[in-house]
């Protein structure tokens, strides 16, 4: 089993390289980083532009530039932006911001999604099932930026009603904040609630639908009947024998769900003014900056593939039939 997981990991490294190479090539071929320089009025001297062009290696073939960039990445140097800022300096902070948002959102989304799905299945065709179904379809059919804006609006009303600012909806921390670490943590939490909710709501809706149908399959299964026949109550049989089996198909979904999350994250970060990786991608495109785009792509690829690998591990942990 360990060998299988190691082989998988090796495959994933190759996939990461391919994904980053494609993004790098696409960005290099379409971006024109000198446009801003050329538009400047009065136009800068030709030698300055030429120096910038040499600096950015725009005359070299794309694969060669990729190899140079990649060999830097291996040493921990992600190159610099068009404006000559080192990317590595900002990378750490932005990754931290995004991961905090994505991980919390995922943990919340997956666990609540599973709970909602199981409850819907066990109480099929009751009010709670109908309510969960309605909620899921409503959320799934609403774009993230609308959900985010609605949340902002709701928070505003809440703050007005209470009279103090309970929830913040700009930034990940108050820049003018001063105080001890407990207060700092509280401050960060109050910033975190809304964007996390924006991300989690979609995930709850998405996972609960799948969990419901997986659980319904298990509810009609023979082994659940066997468990009851040997003396387990229905509730105990459901939780011990049913739930674990119903989680197996979900393990595969987690990997795909993560891709969905990252796209949602771009909007969420922008709406709540979080300077994370999603925000950076948009900034990179605006600045016509290949290195930023390639770095963010690499980050997303690593994230998706790590979650894919985790779902393999999870699958094997849940289902003895796939262990080899």
């Amino acid at each position, binding site marked *: 089993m360990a060998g299988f997981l190691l082989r998988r990991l090796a495959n994933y490294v190759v996939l990461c390289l391919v994904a980053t190479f494609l993004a790098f090539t696409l960005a290099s071929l379409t971006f024109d980083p000198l446009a801003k320089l050329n538009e400047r009025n009065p136009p800068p001297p030709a030698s300055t532009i030429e120096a910038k062009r040499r600096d950015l290696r725009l005359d070299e073939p794309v694969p060669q530039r990729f190899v140079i960039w990649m060999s830097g990445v291996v040493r921990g140097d992600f190159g610099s932006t068009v404006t000559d800022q080192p990317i590595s300096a900002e990378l750490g902070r932005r990754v931290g911001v995004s991961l905090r948002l994505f991980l919390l959102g995922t943990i919340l989304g997956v666990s609540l999604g599973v709970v909602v799905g199981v409850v819907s299945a066990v109480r099929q065709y009751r009010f709670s099932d109908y309510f969960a179904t309605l909620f899921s379809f409503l959320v799934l059919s609403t774009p993230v930026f609308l959900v985010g804006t609605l949340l902002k609006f709701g928070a505003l009303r809440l703050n007005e009603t209470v009279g103090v600012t309970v929830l913040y909806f700009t930034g990940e921390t108050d820049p003018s904040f001063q105080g001890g670490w407990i207060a700092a943590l509280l401050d960060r939490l109050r910033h975190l609630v809304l964007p996390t909710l924006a991300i989690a709501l979609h995930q709850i809706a998405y996972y609960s639908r799948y969990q419901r149908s997986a659980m319904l399959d298990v509810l009609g299964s023979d*082994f659940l*009947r066997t468990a009851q026949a*040997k003396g387990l109550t229905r509730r105990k049989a459901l939780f011990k024998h049913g739930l674990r089996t119903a989680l197996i198909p979900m393990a595969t979904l987690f990997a795909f769900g993560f891709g969905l999350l990252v796209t949602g994250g771009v909007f969420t970060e922008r709406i709540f003014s979080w300077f994370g990786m999603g925000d950076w991608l948009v900034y990179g495109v605006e600045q016509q900056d290949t290195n930023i785009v390639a770095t963010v792509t690499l980050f997303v690829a690593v994230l998706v593939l790590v979650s894919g690998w985790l779902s393999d591990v999870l699958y094997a942990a849940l289902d003895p039939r796939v262990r080899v």
Partner: protein
Amino acid sequence: MTAADTLLDPSPSDADGPVLAVSDLTVSFPSEAGRVRAVRGLSYEVRAGEVLGVVGESGSGKSVSSMAVMGLLPPTARVSGSIRFRGRELLGLSDVELSRVRGDRVAMVFQDPLSALTPVFPVGEQIAEAVLVHAGGRVSRSAAARRAVELLDLVGIPHAAERAKAFPHEFSGGMRQRVVIAMAIANDPDLIIADEPTTALDVTVQAQVLEVLKTAQEVTGAAIVLITHDLGVVAGFADRLMVMYAGRAVETGPVDEIYRRPRMPYTLGLLGALPRLDAEGKQPLVPIEGQPPSLVDLPPGCPFAPRCPMAVPECLTEEPALLAVPDVGSDAATTGTPHHAACVRVGEIARVDAAPEDVYEVEAEVPEPEVARVPRAERATVLDVRELVRHYPVTKGTVFRRRVGTVRAVDGITFDIREGETLGLVGESGCGKTTTLMEILGLAAPTGGSVAVLGKDVSTLDRRGRKAVRRDLQVVFQDPMASLDPRMPVGDILAEPMRVHGEDRQRIARRVPELLRLVGLRPEHADRYPAEFSGGQRQRIGIARALALEPRLVVLDEPVSALDVSVQAGVINLLDELKAKLGLAYLFVAHDLSVVRHIADRVAVMYLGRIVEIGAVDAVFETPGHPYTQALLSAIPIPDPEKERRRERIILAGDLPSPANPPSGCRFRTRCFLHATLTDEDRRRCVEVDPALERQGDRAGGAERDPGAGGADHEVACHFTTVRRVV
């Protein structure tokens, strides 16, 4: 056998009373058509240590009534009446209260062992759970685990201590059923309900599992309710029998009594419809006309009346009660177990001691087809299979696929079918019979050997030649529900093969009603869709489709195994009749040897991709020469309690070896009972030399060793052929 026992058994006098007393039980379910009354006023008792067989066809309410006893019906079911277990009323108990009885005093064994165990827990843990859940903390985890190993050992799982850690998917179907039985007897129950425990298993495995169930009963002294549709299985196992029809008991009594003197026309019909392994000569079966009634709006009167040949106007007014049968020469009075039947004409039936043939109209003897009078050797060969080999590669890896082994699904088999002849191909699942069939139907070059249909070697055929051969080679599939396109009217289904082969419209229009009449349906059925027909009728449509192009060879893949006994008989009779009328040849693949005995002229027994015995059906069944054939035949229960009790069953050890890694020499030697008795030198021969098929009677010294096998058409692949009568 402690606190719980005394709790459930308040007065000592109850020990003599019935373990289970069901009275006036009704169960109904909501459905789109209205409430389905699945069980309608069922009453029965089971005494301590007794085996009650419950027999009926699908939809008779036999499973639903036992699920009601366990309290495992879905919440939509409405249940009324009374279910008393050792004097305590179970109906109306809460789930928590019932769960204390379930698995402790009453246990259950289910039909499908493949899905009955939770896939994600080791089997030992699942058995231990049954112990722990009723121990109330008095048994430690390790003690429960030890008990689980003990139980696995008891039900015959080799290396129980190791295997307890294995997961369900690492066991075969038969082994999983043993695990389920181990779970059922974990708490020494007073009653075990076994719901079709062997239906999903092969016959040799069925024999093993029934043996285990018998052991389980001896160890626990529990009463058993054995639910089955197989009159053979209950014959040797049950003490008392209850026959159910349309949600009610229609006949009950001691098992010998019911088999020898059935008094309800339905029971008579069931016994007459059964093809028998011990039948000598060919007699048409006795099919019951029609099909079981819908349980939604049951008309007044006897529910069997519409299908009953003895029905009188009185039958349609009131449903007959289950009354004692007047004892005319019956031994019910002496045994003290009464014989009851629900029929208004029971007195008449008892007076004449009616046999199935007296009650049901038996079709005239099917005349021998003309070709059958020509000696076999002089008839044309329609299918000639020589040294057929089909191997499948086992590969590993996704990017760099490499071959790591070979599954020898079919490994060199030779047989032929002559005009107007039926060859039965039998064997357990995994023996390669389906692969053989697919190779023949595929008309493509096999891995090795040759297939010739009507003299044409299929490996030499081009596209057009292949299509021409398909005209003469047609197929009927096992599942009549899945093999017909649900969106096509029956007329189109029958016309399709003719259209494909470019026949003109007028001929097709003429042929469709003709075909429908041929298989016993009406021409106006052509406009209906498959969903409007019952299983038996659909299989008739499947047969009609196969006959549309007037083939000379029809391949039948388990054509009756999905049908109920009473319907199956009609289809078998139809096949017999068509063969005689149209001069067809059949390749009949089946696992039910009783059906094969009835319908086939010759039979080939397959084991692990090889034919181990082939010959005329009477020669093979009367004087089987190969130990595997003997075991296979002896495993099949005969619907005759007396014979069944006298029969000695050969129980094969273990499971079928993997066809990817078959044993050297004789492939059967690992499970062979004969091999075990041989001298070391003889044994080496089994290990080293692969036995070839040899004609019986030709071999040196063969005559004195097996005097019974003198017939010319009988070949056996065994070094030490010893004829043994097992039927």
